[in-house]
């Protein structure tokens, strides 16, 4: 994957950088790629560049591979993993390259926020709703409904920034303390600046193939044990309890069922911490904590790197950054590195890992469970 952050490169260049590095690292020749997928939410809206899968396949010499763009807003990367897995499982391809990427930082925060908010229903959009404002609405309700403290949300940011320090790809490689988080400017009350991920440029890539093909290249690979996708209401306020993300619950249920694993089997997880409150909501939706109880896990240190369920060892979207279409792929990349024992100073003891990629405000969700090869 590329370095995440503010990059001079444009989306076509970012995709090519990550894709070329992935092929080189795996020792796979470009002409061996049969399917080439690009996870991307809005290259047309951000920079007026469409047709990116075609461009990528040409730039990497993957012709005449079948190409396809996967757009599922912020969960485009996870949806790309699902599509790539389907291409292999169906027998349609024996070597699929998935590259997720987005170029965003040339836009102002206001413009980028509006591009993302364009996923909302007209009755939401006309009120100026943004994804951060959904987070503020939900965080206030969560803090009101349960015993969670504002400080516990801040500790999510502190933890993930601490993890990001050891990730050479991360946008922010610096620790923040709780006081800094809690004193930062309000963005969507009660959430503050450090409760939110940044706007980011970047790209990440993974290769998918049958195990029989993988063994031709290496003895060390990771297996997709289970994957599930689900959709919740487009109109967020139609959910009877906005603190419950049914897309997370359903996608997780499907992934657990396919894999045969349950929440207790997960050794490491990458969750979609676009906002700190989302880490709690996904922990609860995925069965890592009971409703209203996830905040206790971070207070007890359970989700720290040395805890019993390390979450967002990469630094998460919060510290690593969130180049929309790349994020789900980058989550998979971190789990891949953890399961192969290649995560360097971020390494935890893990045989089974989970990635949860959220689009919209829980509108579309992909959960993927991965295991180390036997």
């Amino acid at each position, binding site marked *: 994957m590329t370095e995440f952050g503010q990059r001079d490169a444009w989306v076509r260049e970012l995709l090519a950088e990550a894709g070329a590095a992935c092929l080189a690292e795996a020792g796979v020749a470009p002409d061996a790629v049969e399917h080439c997928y690009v996870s991307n939410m809005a290259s047309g*809206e951000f920079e007026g560049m469409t047709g990116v899968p075609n461009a990528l396949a040409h730039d990497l010499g993957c012709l005449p591979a079948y190409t396809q763009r996967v757009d599922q807003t912020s969960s485009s990367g996870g949806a790309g993993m699902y599509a790539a897995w389907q291409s292999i499982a169906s027998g349609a391809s024996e070597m699929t390259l998935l590259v997720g990427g987005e170029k965003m930082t040339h836009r102002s*925060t*206001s*413009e980028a*926020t*509006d*591009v993302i*908010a*364009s996923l909302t*229903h*007209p*009755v*939401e*959009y*006309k*009120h*100026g*709703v*943004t994804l*951060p*404002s959904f987070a*503020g*609405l*939900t965080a*206030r*309700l969560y803090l*009101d409904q349960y015993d969670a403290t504002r400080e516990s949300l801040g500790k999510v940011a502190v933890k993930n920034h601490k993890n990001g320090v050891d990730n050479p790809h991360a946008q922010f490689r610096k620790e923040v303390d709780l006081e800094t988080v809690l004193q930062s*400017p*309000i*963005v*969507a*009350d*009660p*959430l503050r600046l450090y409760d939110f991920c940044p706007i980011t440029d970047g790209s990440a890539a993974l290769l998918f193939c049958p195990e029989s093909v993988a063994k031709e290249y290496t003895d060390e690979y990771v297996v997709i044990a289970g994957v599930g996708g689900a959709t919740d209401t487009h*109109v*967020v*306020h*139609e959910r*009877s309890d*906005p603190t419950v993300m049914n897309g997370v619950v359903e996608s997780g249920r499907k992934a657990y069922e396919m894999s045969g694993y349950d929440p207790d089997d997960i050794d490491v997880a990458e969750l979609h911490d676009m906002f700190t409150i989302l880490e709690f909501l996904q922990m609860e939706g995925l069965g890592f904590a009971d409703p209203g109880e996830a905040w206790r896990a971070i207070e007890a240190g359970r989700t720290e790197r040395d805890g019993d369920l390390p979450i967002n060892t990469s630094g998460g979207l919060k510290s690593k950054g969130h180049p929309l279409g790349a994020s789900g792929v980058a989550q998979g990349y971190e789990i891949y590195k953890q399961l192969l024992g290649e995560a360097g100073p971020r390494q935890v003891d893990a045989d089974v890992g989970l990635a949860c990629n959220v689009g919209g405000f829980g509108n579309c969700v992909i959960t993927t469970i991965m295991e180390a090869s036997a």
Partner: protein
Amino acid sequence: MSHEDDVEGGADRDPDAGETPAMEATRYADGSITYPGHPIGPDGAEPVGTVDLSEYTATVVTWTTSTAPPPGVDAPNHLAIVAFDIDGEAVQALGQLTTDEVAIGDEVTPVYAPELRDPAAGIREAKSQDWDGYRFEPV
């Protein structure tokens, strides 16, 4: 199929005649109500009528103040999710608040605004949707 046959409240008002448009929710054959309406209801039920939510008060479910609104929206932007009780049927809506002097559980009433956001400022095509609607004001 027509769901204009069973109109409750003021959903039949004419904005061209200077009347305030309705805050139109949709009622389905199974009795459920959603705002906005959908071609098919939550459990596959057909739309059978409309309800003008502007004639009811609602309760604040949650709220926030956004200090970084998108283009065409004044800062700060106070927003709330509110719940209406329409003869025992719950229906929720989201909208701007007229003030941040509000708390969860407060009662609010819809107040019409001819333009909630500058249609020309954002990424969405201005003609693709309407831009008027209802803010919520504490009772």
